């Protein structure tokens, strides 16, 4: 059965292997050329420190202009590969058999329909996931070489950085693949399954992208009103923020705005350092005792990724069960 599935999906598997080889070569070349560019512009120290501490800011700016495009392309590649897996591997897997009637040949041999389905699924899915994980690893390896000069400086929670990290791409790929196979057995048309699968994947992928944040417990960070909380700058994901009153209860936003306006208008001679100090002193007096923020720290990003994989993996399992059910009652 393994040989049978392998022989039928040979073209896809060779394509995947080709993609992997090209990916390894291209990323290794680009990375080494980028490292050359870093050393030649004396930017080595800037890779690990924040941009404002960089000794050669002009060189850093030129570097970013030169390399932000290739680095973004690499990130987009990892965002797109799951959709490609769904469209080109998941959707035609059973749709082609149903469309051309060849499933009749398989269904009139002694192998059970479930086993036939599983062996096709495994041979199609596992190599695709291996290639995806390898490419993801390569891109991360390249991005980390750019350090804070590259897109990683934006933190783990920006949409592009989040979508290519940890187990999330695998979750998306599982979902896209299962969606493709399901639409394939329902529509029995390869082209319909491919286009509808792509559309549905894009919609669901973006519709659910915010949901995951609400599933992970947040931490509340508090601070005095006179200084901005550091969580706004250290890459944490801020889900809610505002002011607390003296009892520790959040103050409604329109009330906050009114109080801030009131503090701004009290002292004469606005704009001077003294008025600024007075303004800040006014805030706690008028009832805005503390600033707060509900955050998920960058070090907790893995929890969000796990929730993400659970959602998309769960959907994938449901869709695969649906695929098996439709195939078993196919007549």
């Amino acid at each position: 059965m393994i040989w049978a599935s392998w022989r039928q999906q040979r073209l896809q598997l060779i394509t995947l292997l080709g993609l992997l080889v090209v990916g390894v070569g291209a990323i290794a070349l680009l990375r080494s050329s980028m490292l050359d560019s870093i050393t030649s512009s004396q930017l080595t120290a800037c890779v690990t420190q924040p941009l404002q501490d960089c000794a050669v800011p002009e060189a850093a700016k030129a570097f970013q202009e030169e390399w932000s495009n290739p680095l973004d392309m690499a990130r987009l590649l990892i965002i797109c590969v799951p959709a490609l897996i769904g469209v080109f591997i998941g959707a035609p897997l059973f749709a082609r058999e149903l469309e051309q009637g060849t499933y009749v040949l398989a269904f009139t041999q002694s192998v059970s329909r479930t086993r036939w389905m599983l062996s096709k699924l495994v041979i199609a899915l596992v190599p695709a996931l291996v290639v995806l994980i390898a490419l993801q690893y390569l891109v991360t390896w390249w991005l980390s070489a750019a350090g804070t000069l590259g897109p990683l400086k934006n933190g783990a929670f920006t949409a592009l950085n989040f979508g290519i990290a940890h187990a999330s791409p695998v979750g998306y790929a599982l979902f896209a693949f299962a969606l493709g196979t399901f639409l394939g057995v329902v529509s029995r048309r390869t082209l319909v399954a491919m286009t509808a699968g792509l559309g549905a994947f894009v919609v669901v992928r973006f519709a659910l992208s915010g949901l995951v944040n609400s599933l992970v417990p947040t931490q509340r960070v508090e601070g005095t009103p006179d200084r901005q909380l550091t969580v706004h700058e250290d890459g944490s994901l801020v889900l809610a923020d505002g002011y607390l009153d003296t009892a520790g209860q959040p103050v409604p936003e329109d009330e906050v705005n009114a109080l801030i306006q009131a503090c701004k208008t009290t002292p004469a001679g606005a704009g001077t350092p003294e008025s600024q100090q007075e303004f800040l002193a006014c805030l706690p007096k008028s009832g805005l005792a503390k600033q707060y923020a509900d955050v998920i720290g960058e070090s907790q990003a893995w929890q969000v990724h796990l929730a993400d994989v659970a959602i998309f993996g769960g959907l994938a399992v449901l869709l695969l069960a649906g695929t098996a059910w439709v195939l078993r009652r196919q007549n």
Partner: protein
Amino acid sequence: MNSLTATAVGKRYRARWAVRDCGFAIPEGKVVALVGPNGAGKSTLLRMAAGLSRPTTGELKVFGTPVQGRIHPDVAFLAQERPLYHDLTVRELVRLCAAMNDRWSTERVREVLGLQAGVDHNAKVGSLSGGGRTQVAIALALGRLPRLLLLDEPLADLDPLARDETLRIIMTEVADRGTTVVMSSHLLSDLHEVCDHILLIDEGRVQVDGDIQEVLARHRILVGPAAGESTVEGTLISATRTERQSTLLLREAEPAPRGWASTEPDLESLVMGYLRASRERRNSAQHK
């Protein structure tokens, strides 16, 4: 034991019944000609017997086991569309089928393909002619070493020589292994050479079921004057009439009256008679 039995089998596609209230029993070792007009339900019946589709009503049994959602291990099925993977070579396709079967004889497939001229093992299946693909599909069906062989239009796209070879292979299979064969076909003269049992269905119902010799012996073709039809006794199946002469197909006919010539029909004229009768029934039903 009966190799295939049907009890009140019906199959409905949306509003239309493809097969309706079908009942028959095929004893082991028979070679059955499954005949009927286009759209009579022959393919539907064979697909249900192969476990590819489920009857809406009733039950099919193969060697005493109900057919439920999968093919019986002792059954091999040749589908009308000859579903084969076109991008594989014949050799690869044989290996693929071997991998999908517990009981399989690649020897047998080679032997059958060897008997049929002109199938190159290294040719892509897609590059073969329709007849070539049919021959490969029959060889693959025999590779399962079946006890019941279901063939949907096995002779349809074969040239006369290939048709002869294929019929001979089927006959050898029956003689050597005692395989029961159910084959649907429109080629009545070919069927007569190999089949010993007839199952005639029309509009999803069984019209004739029995040993071909017995069925033929029970029927008579009477030719006589157009005016004297009332003197003929027996169950009239169908008639063709000209101004002067009537040709009647009768079941359980009494001895022919004076002026009538009575002969035993051959398979072709028997089937033609039944098909004509069913068409007339259908036409008159439409006109009502």
